[in-house]
């Protein structure tokens, strides 16, 4: 499916979505509400069939946090990028680990390093850092005078 066709299909599923221009792949901007059902639909709709989630990235924009999902279809070979905009102080979004199993680890990583809470995640714990770690290291306002070396 081309970028234009993808946009049309996505708008059908999620009328509130806006699109970001100028990037390599079709990029959808959305809020946390409805992301869960939208994800389920892009996974199951036969003309979209986004069966492979290859990257989950959480980005701290200082005013808000976005979680970027890179989706691709192994059947149709098209790619969709979904950016979910979240509140900076209480970032919360529904998990997609039930739809794409790989999300379980990727979401734990995002929680561990960026503090994004994925509601409904089966096992949301720190992945790399110790359980008693304070703070979310990848956030821009994170300070660690002991372990961080400023260049």
């Amino acid at each position, binding site marked *: 499916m081309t970028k234009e066709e993808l946009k049309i299909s996505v708008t059908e599923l999620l009328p509130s979505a806006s699109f970001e221009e*100028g*990037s*390599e*792949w079709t990029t959808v901007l959305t809020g946390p509400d409805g992301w869960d059902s939208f994800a389920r639909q892009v996974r199951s709709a036969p003309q979209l069939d986004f*069966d*492979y*989630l*290859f*990257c989950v*990235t959480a*980005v*701290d924009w200082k005013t808000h946090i976005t979680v*970027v999902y*890179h989706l691709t279809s*192994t059947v149709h*070979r098209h790619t969709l990028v979904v950016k979910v905009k979240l509140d900076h102080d209480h970032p919360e979004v529904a998990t997609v680990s039930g739809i*794409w*199993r*790989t999300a*379980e*680890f*990727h979401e734990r*990583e995002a929680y561990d*390093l960026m503090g994004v809470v994925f509601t409904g995640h089966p096992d949301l714990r*720190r*992945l*790399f*850092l*110790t*359980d008693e770690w304070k703070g979310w*290291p*990848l956030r821009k306002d994170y300070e660690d005078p002991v372990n*961080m070396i*400023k*260049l």
Partner: protein
Amino acid sequence: MIEEIGTTEQGELVVNLGPQHPSTHGVLHLVVTLSGETIKKVEPHLGYIHRSIEKMCESLSYRQFIYVTSRMDYLSSHINNHGCALCVEKGMQIEVPPRAKVIRVLMDELTRLASHQLWWGAMAMDVGALTPFFYAFREREAINDIMEETCGARLTMNYMAPGGVAFDLHPDFQRKVKDFLAFFRTKIDEYDELVTDNIIFQRRMEGIGYLSSEDAISYGCTGPTARGSGVSCDIRKSVPYEVYSQVQFEEVLETGGDCFARYNVRMGEMRQSISIIEQLIDNIPGGEFLAKTKAVLKLPKGEFYSKVETARGEFGVYIISEGGTTPYRIKFRSPGFSNLSALDHMARGHKIGDLVAIMGTLDLVIPDIDR
């Protein structure tokens, strides 16, 4: 992080495999719940070698950050560097000279060979055959020598630079690579005789750690792990970069989905890599090896994603730039991380010995997972 280790109420035994264990190849820590010898649950605990490379890269320039990625998947450091260089080039719209493209592919394939050789030795060691490890290292040593001559390093090469490669090939490069290929062509058959055809080895591999193609996609497995389940996911074929669209090679696919299928995929890939190198080694175009670039690279505001096929699978680099000299946010999508997430699913119901074999066929490199 580590819960009370002991026996559960059902009389199951909870065993810590790692962080120091001969077959986790590094500091992976698996908490394995056993019922007798049978695995009920495998829970990976990561982070023993977490360095927060993504955070580090946020304060490094676009020339510097490439070299940190050699420390992730140290067995395919060339390919990691390559992925980063591609991403920077995509952002800066740098045209890479044809000579550099060929050199990059040659280096990638040599790295893939070296990585698969090490995997082959370690894999055999995991199932209890100690000797193949030394045979694998003999061949890998030859590749390391070739790398050392050209790149000046044997493990963390740091050879790729935005716009090409850091320096030209050593004059002996072509001759040495040809010598090596002639030598390795005979040795790879020996690998098959020694290990692949061994009946005990086959019995240990067949039907173990089954991963269906749906599960492989759902768990985000890539590389030989997914291709062993029949998922066509080779980035070199699906999104060809550099000169991969011009060389003849096959994407090795197996449909078994078990350990033996994954093993065969890697063995097949070694042969394909040899063929790619043979096609290119006599056809290295002349000219520049490094495009002229500005001294200080500033990526335009925007987002850039590039992916390459490492020896373990799809390596993605996601750069978010705010227009400065350093990335605003960088994300590495490492293949081992996703492949590891399927381990629990694959290992359940098998024996401890199988867990080790499955980990062997996943070809885990822990710094790649922990980053």
